[in-house]
């Protein structure tokens, strides 16, 4: 447990780093001066109200959205200003789980997960089949090969999309509200899957969320979006900092819980 102090996320190597990012859509300023970082091998949770720019932040990291000003670095490489072709190199390192899955709805689940393998590897049909089945099994899905995305339940769909996001072995996994609209058992399942990917494979994970309890459990680092700025830190730091915006957003229960957890880890 003391190790958690030595590898303090605030001082560890940043895998993803946004600096002085400004972004406006017309008159709607989403980010004024956004600075935040996601340490390598850690789970970073991005919290913020609806419309605070959580999805937009992930889109900036994936190069789907360009900032008006500022820098976005992924694995040390500046993403802003890269063309579509050069972005390929960066995106190979990134898996993205979109909020509604974003699976192609005209092809089967199997073909969806197989798609990156077919496009970017020289694997033959047998290898692809075993790889896809291995990935689907790892997220707890079998017997869904022939189904179309529309035929899956919300939780299954989310997991199938997760299988597609990790099929190319990314180092960074971006998850946009992976818990939204799911019942508690499915929330736990996804949380367990993400935690396992982080622990066992060392993936750097950035999750946007509304789900306070799981955020507090999973997050090594929290980033709170508000009014175009970000407040970042470990859960304990944020709580200890006593920033009224933080307390207001997290709610007193979550603060109490985190304070309890923080006290527990210090004590052990």
């Amino acid at each position, binding site marked *: 447990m003391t190790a958690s102090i030595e590898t303090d996320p605030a001082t560890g190597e940043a895998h993803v780093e946004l600096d002085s990012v400004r972004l406006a859509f017309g008159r709607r300023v989403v980010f004024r001066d956004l600075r935040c970082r996601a340490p390598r091998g850690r789970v970073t949770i991005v919290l913020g109200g609806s419309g605070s720019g959580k999805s937009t932040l992930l889109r900036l990291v994936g190069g789907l959205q360009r900032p008006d000003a500022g820098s976005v670095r992924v694995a040390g490489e500046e993403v802003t200003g890269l063309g579509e072709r050069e*972005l*390929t190199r960066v*995106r190979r390192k990134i898996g993205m789980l*979109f909020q509604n899955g974003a699976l192609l709805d005209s092809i089967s689940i199997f073909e969806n997960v197989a798609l*990156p393998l077919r496009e970017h590897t020289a694997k033959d049909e047998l290898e692809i089949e075993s790889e896809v089945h291995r990935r689907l099994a790892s997220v707890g899905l079998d017997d869904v090969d022939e189904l179309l995305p529309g035929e899956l339940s919300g939780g299954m769909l989310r997991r199938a999309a997760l299988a597609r996001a990790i099929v*190319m072995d990314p180092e960074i996994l971006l998850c946009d509200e992976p818990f939204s609209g799911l019942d508690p058992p499915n929330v736990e399942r996804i949380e367990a899957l993400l935690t396992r990917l982080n622990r066992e494979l060392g993936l750097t994970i950035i999750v946007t969320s509304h789900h306070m309890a799981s955020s507090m459990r999973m997050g090594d680092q929290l980033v709170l979006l508000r009014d175009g700025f970000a407040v970042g830190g470990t859960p304990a730091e944020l709580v200890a900092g006593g920033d009224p915006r933080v307390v207001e957003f997290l709610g007193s229960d979550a603060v109490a819980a985190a304070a309890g957890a923080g006290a527990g880890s210090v004590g052990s």
Partner: protein
Amino acid sequence: MTGAVARLGARSVDWVAGLGHMTRFAGSVVAAALRPPLRGRTLVREIYDVGVRSLALILGSGFVVGMVLGLQAYNTLARFGAEQSLGAVVGLSLIRELGPVLTGLLVTGRAGSATAAGIGAMVTTGQLDGLRMMSISPIHFVVYPKALALLIAMPLLSALFIVVGVFGGYVVVVELLGLDPGSYLSSLENAVDFRDDVLASVLKGVVFGLLAGLISTYRGYTSEPTAEGVSRSTTSTVVVASVCILISNYFITALWGV
């Protein structure tokens, strides 16, 4: 006054910018079409989709239009005692103008709008961004097969329209009006010129297919990611593509040498 001029100016700039965008888009679709892989399976599925969507419409419309042509041509030609040219008039009208133009408009309304709506829905649900994040070009994976499918299907459907139309005319002229079946078909055969009529007809089908394919995919691809955005791009696909088809039809007819 200055306000009106400024608005006109702004609109013209928008229009030119839109045309520039559209041209760049068309360029990237062509570039995608020339880049492997061919995506043959997707292409066949898209052609099948366009065909299945439009088949009944084309068969039904072609037949009825042919019947009307038969009646109208009979009314006119009978005044001059030229009933033996009925086949030629019905056939040439269908081959040169009505077949390709009506097919262009009908397929645009049916399959072109569906293409725009389909791509628009993929934009709205993030499927295209999903492809981008997997380093798969949405233009190559989604747009090019859909555009090429319309390009390929259009002349085929137009040919079908013409054949069914000629048959519809035959039913009216021979079965209802009791004219000689031999003269209907032989006058058609003798009148048709391969280059002037058949090639021009195929060219029209290809050009209309190209227009419907590019405009519908462009509108879908650039639609706003909302339900209203998708429905706007669907509507504008039908309007813009139909007008473009009618205008280009005039130029092809005029330039091909009548």
